[in-house]
C-alpha cells in the first residue's frame, strides 16, 4: 500500500499537471493508468460478493416461512408481519436462558479475560534476557493452537470431581466442572489459559513503538519501574487497548460454539447453554431454519449496536476509535 501511494504522488502529477490541478485526478485517468491494479482488486471484491454478501440474502429467511427449498425472496412471509420467529424466540424460555448465559459469560471474559494479556505483555516487556523472553513467549502461544475438543478432554482428566488429578492430589472432591458456578470459573480460566499468550502479540507490537527516549527521560526524572509502566508504557498502548475493547464489546452477544459445547455437561447446562448451542439444537438438529436465522440476526444487530456505541464513546473521550 505504502509504495502504491508514493507512486501516485510522485508519478501522476507530472503527466496530468495543468488539467486537474484544482480538481484532483478524474477516475478515468486513474483507471487508465492503473487498470491492472484495479483488475487485481476485482478478485477480493468478487470474493466478498459471492461468499459474503450473496449468502446474506438468506437473512430474509428470518422473516419468512421455514423453507429452504426455494430462494428466500420467493418464500411466503411469516406470520405477525414477518416477526413470527422473533416473537417465538422471546417466548421460548430456552432462548432467554441462552441469551443470559451468552451475555454473562462474555462479560466475564471481557472483565477478567481482557486485562490478562495486557499484564502479561507488560511482564514480558520487562524481561531483560532476550532468549528467555523469546522462549517464554513461544510457550505462552502454544495453547492457542490446541482445539477446544482436546482441551475439554484434558480438562476432565485434570478437573473431574473425583477421578481428576487435581482433586486426587489435594485429596478433595471439588466439583470444578460439576456445578454451574464453578463451571463458569473453569470456563473463564481455560479461556484465559488458551488465548492469553496469543493476545499479548498485539500489545507487544504496540510496546515496541514507544520511543525509548521517553523511558530515558522518565529515568532522569527519577521514575522507578512501576512509575515507568504507569506513566510511559500504559499510555503508549492506550489506543491499542481501546481498539481491542471496542472490538470485544462488539462481540458481547456473539458466541463461540466449540468452547461451551465441548466443556459442557448435563450438570451445568443452565450455565453453559449459549445462543450458539441453542441455534445448533433448534436449527441444525430441528431444521428450524427461520427461527434460528432470526436469532442470528438479532445477535448481529445487537453486536453492531454495541460496536457503534463503544466506538462513539471512545471518540468522545478523545480516542481515534476504529474508523
Amino acid at each position, binding site marked *: 500500500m505504502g509504495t502504491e501511494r508514493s507512486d501516485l504522488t510522485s508519478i501522476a502529477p507530472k503527466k496530468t499537471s495543468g488539467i486537474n490541478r484544482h480538481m484532483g485526478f478524474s477516475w478515468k485517468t486513474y483507471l487508465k493508468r492503473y487498470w491492472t491494479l484495479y483488475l487485481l482488486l476485482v478478485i477480493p471484491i468478487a470474493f466478498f460478493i459471492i461468499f459474503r454478501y450473496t449468502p446474506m440474502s438468506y437473512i430474509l429467511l428470518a422473516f419468512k416461512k421455514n*423453507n429452504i427449498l426455494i430462494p428466500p425472496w420467493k418464500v411466503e412471509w411469516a406470520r405477525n408481519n414477518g416477526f413470527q420467529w422473533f416473537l417465538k424466540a422471546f417466548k421460548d424460555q430456552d432462548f432467554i436462558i441462552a441469551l443470559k448465559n451468552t451475555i454473562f459469560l462474555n462479560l466475564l471474559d471481557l472483565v477478567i479475560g481482557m486485562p490478562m494479556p495486557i499484564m502479561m505483555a507488560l511482564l514480558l516487556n520487562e524481561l531483560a534476557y532476550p532468549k528467555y523472553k523469546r522462549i517464554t513467549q513461544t510457550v505462552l502461544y502454544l495453547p492457542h493452537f490446541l482445539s477446544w475438543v482436546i482441551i475439554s478432554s484434558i480438562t476432565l482428566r485434570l478437573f473431574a*470431581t473425583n477421578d481428576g488429578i487435581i482433586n486426587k492430589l489435594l485429596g478433595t472432591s471439588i466439583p470444578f466442572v460439576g456445578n454451574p458456578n464453578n463451571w463458569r470459573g473453569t470456563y473463564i480460566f481455560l479461556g484465559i489459559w488458551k488465548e492469553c499468550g496469543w493476545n499479548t502479540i498485539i500489545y507487544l507490537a504496540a510496546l515496541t513503538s514507544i520511543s525509548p527516549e521517553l523511558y530515558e527521560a522518565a529515568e532522569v526524572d527519577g521514575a522507578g519501574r512501576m512509575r515507568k509502566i504507569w506513566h510511559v508504557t500504559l499510555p503508549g498502548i492506550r489506543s491499542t487497548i481501546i481498539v481491542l475493547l471496542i472490538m470485544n464489546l462488539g462481540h458481547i452477544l456473539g458466541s463461540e460454539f466449540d468452547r461451551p459445547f465441548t466443556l459442557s*455437561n448435563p450438570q451445568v*447446562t443452565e450455565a453453559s447453554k449459549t445462543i450458539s448451542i441453542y441455534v445448533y*439444537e433448534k436449527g441444525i438438529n430441528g431444521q428450524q431454519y427461520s427461527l434460528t436465522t432470526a436469532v442470528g440476526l438479532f445477535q448481529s444487530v445487537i453486536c453492531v449496536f454495541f460496536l457503534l456505541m463503544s466506538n462513539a464513546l471512545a471518540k468522545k473521550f478523545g480516542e481515534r476509535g476504529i474508523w
Partner: protein
Amino acid sequence: MKRILSLILVLALAATLGITSAFAADEGFVDGKFTETRHITVEIYNRNNDGGTDPTNNVWTEYLKKGMLEKYNVEVEYVSVGRWSETDDIAQLLADHSAPDISYTYGYNTIITYANMKDENGNPGVIDLAPYLEEYKDYIGNIITLLGGEDNLYYDKDPVTGEVWMIEGVRADTSRITTFIRKDWLDKLGLGLPTTEEEFYNALVAFRDNAETLLGENADKMIPYTTSTDIGWRNDLLAVSKVAEDIDDNTLFVYGYDDRHLLYPGYKEGIRVLNKWYNEGLIWKDFGLYNDSTQEDDNMKAGYVGAFMHNWDYPFRNGEDCINLNLQRNVGEDAMFVPIDCFQNDAGITRKFMGAAVGSDRKIFLPSTNTEPLASLLYIDFISSPEVIKYLQTGEEGVNFTMTEDGAYQILPATGDWIKNSGNNIDYTMTCNGLYLGEATGKTTALSYPGIPADIVIQANEYGKNNGRYPAHFNVGTIESETEVGTSLSEKRDEIFTKSVIASVDEFDSVYDSLLDAYMNMGGQDIIDERIEKLQEIYGITYEK
C-alpha cells in the same frame, strides 16, 4: 362435531383430487420393465472407516447396479452422505436441489419438515407416495412381505389427508437393552446371578464392600455400577420396572414422546433408586461430567466395573477390541460380563418397552426433485427381496462365509474389496436393519461375535427382548409441537436425570420436579396436550389425565 367431520372429508377429497391430477402412470414401464434405461441416484452413508472401501463403488454396489439394470433396466448411481452429519448433509442437498432420488434418515421429523416446505411449483419438498403405492402395488410385493403386511406399508399415512411421505425400514432384531454383571466377581464372593432388584442391589453393595478383595491395590477405583449421562437408555430396565403392569396403550401413547420413556407414569421411582445407589457410593461418581463413552469403556475394559446396562451386544462389539475380550486380556481368563434379567415390575414380570419392528428404524423418502418415482420404488423393492438381503449380509460362499453343519453362516474376516463398511451391510439393506436369514438368523447371530461363547450371545439377545411390550401404534399424522423442538427436549431430559441422580436423597424430589416442570414448559406439555387432542380427533378416544 358433524361440521368438522364434513369439513375434514371435503378437505380429504380435495387433497386426493389434487394428488391424482399430479400423478401420472409411467408409460415407459411395460411388463415389469422399462423400455428405455432410466437413471436414479441413491443415498448411501459414508462412515469413513479405516481400511473401508468407497461406499459408492465397491463389490456390493456393483451387485446392486447389475441386478437393477438386468431386472428393470434402471441405472443406479450412489451418492454418499456422511453418516454422522446426515441431517445437515441432506438439508444442504435438498436446498441445492440435488438430494438423491432415494434418501433415508432416522429422523421422522426431518422428513415431515421438508414435506411441509413447498417448492417453486407449490409441491411439497417430498413426494407423496400414496398414489404410487396404490398403482404399483403388484410390483412391490417384497417390501410388503418384509414389512409384514400392507398395513405397515401405510404405517405413516396421514389419517386426514391420506398422504404417505415415507416408507419405514424394518428392524429385523428388536432386542434392545440387557443388564450385564461380572460373573467372576460374583463367584469370588460366593454370590449367584441376581434374579431380582434386591439381589442386584446386594451384589453391588458386596462389590463396594469387598473392593480390596476384588481389585487389590486398585481398590479405590472400584465402580460397582456404571452409567453415562444417557441415563434413560443406560438404566431403562430398572426405571421401567416401576411402571405399572396394567398401564394401557392410550397412556403409553399420550406419554410416549420421549423414546427413553421419561414421561411414563411411575418412571420417576426408578430414578429415585439410582439416586439412592449414587449416594451409597454404588454408581460411578464422575459419570455426569463425560459426554462420550471412552472413559467409561476404559473403566470397563480395565476391570473396575461390576455391572451396567447397555445395548444387548455392547460387551461383544468391535471384534478383538470388545469389552469382554479386553477384560480377559487385562484381568484374566475367567473375567467376563454375563447377561442377567432381574428387574421385575409390580406383577413380577421383567417387562421391557420395545421399539416395534416397524416404525422405529430408518425411513425412506423421495425428494420432490425425483423424476423417477416408479424406478425408485422398484429399487426399494429390489433391495427388500430376501435373496438380495441375504447376499448383502453374507456374500459369496467360500469367500465371505462358510456354512456350519447346523446351517448357520460362519462369516469369515473380510479383506480388500469384500470389506463391509457397515455391520451386516445395513447401509445397503436400507429397508432392513439386522440379520434377515430366515431360520439361520439366530444361529448366525450367535456366531457373529468371534471369541465370545455362543450361549452368552444368545442369552444376551434373548434377555434384550423377552417380556417385551410393543406399545400400540396410533397413526395420528403429524404432531406439530414435536417437529419444532429439535434435540432440546432430549438434552433437557438428560439434565433432569443426571442432576436428580447426583442430588442428595433429601433434595431428590425438589430437583426432579422442578426440572421436569422446566421440561414441560419447554414444549413437553404441548406435546402431551396435542397427543390427547389427536387421540380424540382421529380415534374418538377421550383421554382423562
